[in-house]
C-alpha cells in the first residue's frame, strides 16, 4: 500500500471513502466498519487518532450533501410546511410536510444531544475492533428482532403517499424514541440507519416508509456532526489529511448516491433481514479474525 507523506495514503482514502458512503446508509454501521477494516488490513489507523476523526468529517459531509440533494424537493416541501406551521402557530391536519418536519426535529433532538455530550467518551471506550465486531452482531440481532416484533405494516402502494403515512402514523413520542435509538450509533458496531429503521418498523411503518424517515432523519444529524468538526479539517489538525480526505469525500459521495438510490427501491418490497444476517455473520467472522491476530 503506497504511503505518502500523510498518515493516510490515497489508496486507503479511496477504500475508506467508498466504504463510508456505502455503509453509512446501509444498516450495517459505517463507524463499526471504519474501526474494523483498518485493523483487519493491518493499517496503522486508529479510530481515536485526531487525524482520522478529522478525515472522517469530509466523508460524512459528502454523505450529508448527497442525501440533501437526493431529497432536495422533499426538504423544500418540509421547510415550507414548517414555516407555514410557525406562521399559523399550529400544525393543521392538511400540513403533512410541516408535521413531518417537526417529527424530524423531535427525532433529531435526542441523538443530537447525546452525540454532543457523549460522542468523545463513547468513542474512547469502544475503540477496539473486537468491541465493534461484537456490537455488529448485536446490531444484526436488533435488526432481526425489529422485523420479527414489528406490528404488521399495512400494504400500501409505493410512492407519493409515503410522507402522509409517516406523518399520520408516527407519534411525537415515537419520533423521540426513534431519535433516541439513533444515538446507539455512537457506539461503533451499531447502525444509525438500522436503529431508526427498526424503530420505524416497531411503530408500525412499512419498510419503505421507515427507510424514507431514516434517510430524512440522517441528513441533519450527519450534516451537523460534520459541520461541527469542519474547522478541524480546515485548521492545523487537517494538515496532511486534506488531500486524502477530499478524495475519500468524492468516493463517499458516489457510493452514498448509489446506496440511497438502491435502498429506496429495495425497501419498497424488501426487508432488513439480509442485513441482519450479514451483521451477525460478519461480526462473528471479524471477531474470530481479530482474535487470531
Amino acid at each position, binding site marked *: 500500500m503506497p504511503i505518502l507523506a500523510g498518515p493516510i495514503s490515497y489508496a486507503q482514502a479511496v477504500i475508506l471513502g467508498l466504504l463510508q458512503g456505502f455503509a453509512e446508509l446501509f444498516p450495517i454501521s459505517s463507524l463499526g466498519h471504519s474501526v474494523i477494516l483498518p485493523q483487519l488490513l493491518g493499517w496503522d489507523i486508529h479510530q481515536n487518532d485526531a487525524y482520522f476523526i478529522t478525515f472522517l468529517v469530509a466523508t460524512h459531509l459528502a454523505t450529508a450533501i448527497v442525501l440533501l440533494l437526493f431529497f432536495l424537493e422533499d426538504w423544500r416541501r418540509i421547510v415550507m410546511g414548517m414555516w407555514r406551521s410557525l406562521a399559523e*402557530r399550529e400544525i393543521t391536519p392538511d400540513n403533512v410536510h410541516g408535521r413531518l418536519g417537526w417529527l424530524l426535529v423531535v427525532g433529531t433532538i435526542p441523538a443530537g444531544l447525546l452525540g454532543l455530550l457523549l460522542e468523545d467518551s463513547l468513542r474512547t471506550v469502544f475503540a477496539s475492533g473486537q468491541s465493534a465486531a461484537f456490537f455488529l452482531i448485536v446490531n444484526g440481532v436488533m435488526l432481526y428482532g425489529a422485523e420479527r416484533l414489528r406490528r404488521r405494516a399495512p400494504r400500501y402502494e409505493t410512492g407519493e403517499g409515503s410522507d402522509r403515512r409517516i406523518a399520520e402514523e408516527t407519534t411525537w413520542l415515537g419520533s423521540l424514541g426513534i431519535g433516541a435509538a439513533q444515538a446507539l450509533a455512537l457506539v461503533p458496531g451499531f447502525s444509525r440507519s438500522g436503529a431508526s429503521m427498526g424503530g420505524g418498523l416497531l411503530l408500525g411503518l412499512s419498510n419503505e416508509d421507515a427507510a424514507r424517515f431514516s434517510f430524512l432523519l440522517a441528513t441533519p444529524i450527519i450534516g451537523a456532526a460534520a459541520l461541527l468538526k469542519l474547522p478541524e479539517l480546515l485548521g492545523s489538525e487537517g494538515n496532511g489529511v486534506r488531500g486524502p480526505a477530499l478524495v475519500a469525500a468524492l468516493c463517499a459521495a458516489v457510493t452514498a448516491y448509489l446506496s440511497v438510490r438502491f435502498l429506496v427501491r429495495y425497501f419498497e418490497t424488501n426487508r432488513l433481514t439480509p442485513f441482519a444476517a450479514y451483521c451477525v455473520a460478519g461480526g462473528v467472522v471479524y471477531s474470530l479474525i481479530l482474535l487470531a491476530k
Partner: protein
Amino acid sequence: MSRNRMLVPAAILAGALLIIVAVIYWVEPAKSLPFPDFLGHEAGSNTVHIKHGIAAFLLGIACFVFAWFQSGPKHGRASTRTPE
C-alpha cells in the same frame, strides 16, 4: 398537538434558563463551571465545552418553539388550503 397553556410559562422559563446555561458553557472554562462533574465541570481544566453549549442552546430554542405552538390560537382554524 394537544394544547396546554399551563405549559407555556414553564417552557419559556426553561428555554431562557437553557440559553443562559449555553452562554455559561461558552464563556467559562470547565474548572469554573457551576455544574456537577457529569455536566462538564472538571477541576483544573481550561477546556471550554463548546458542544455542551450548543446542546443547551438548541434545547432552549426547542423550548421556545414548543411554547410558540402551545400559545397559538385556542381553536384550530379550518384550513382553506387544498390537502397536499
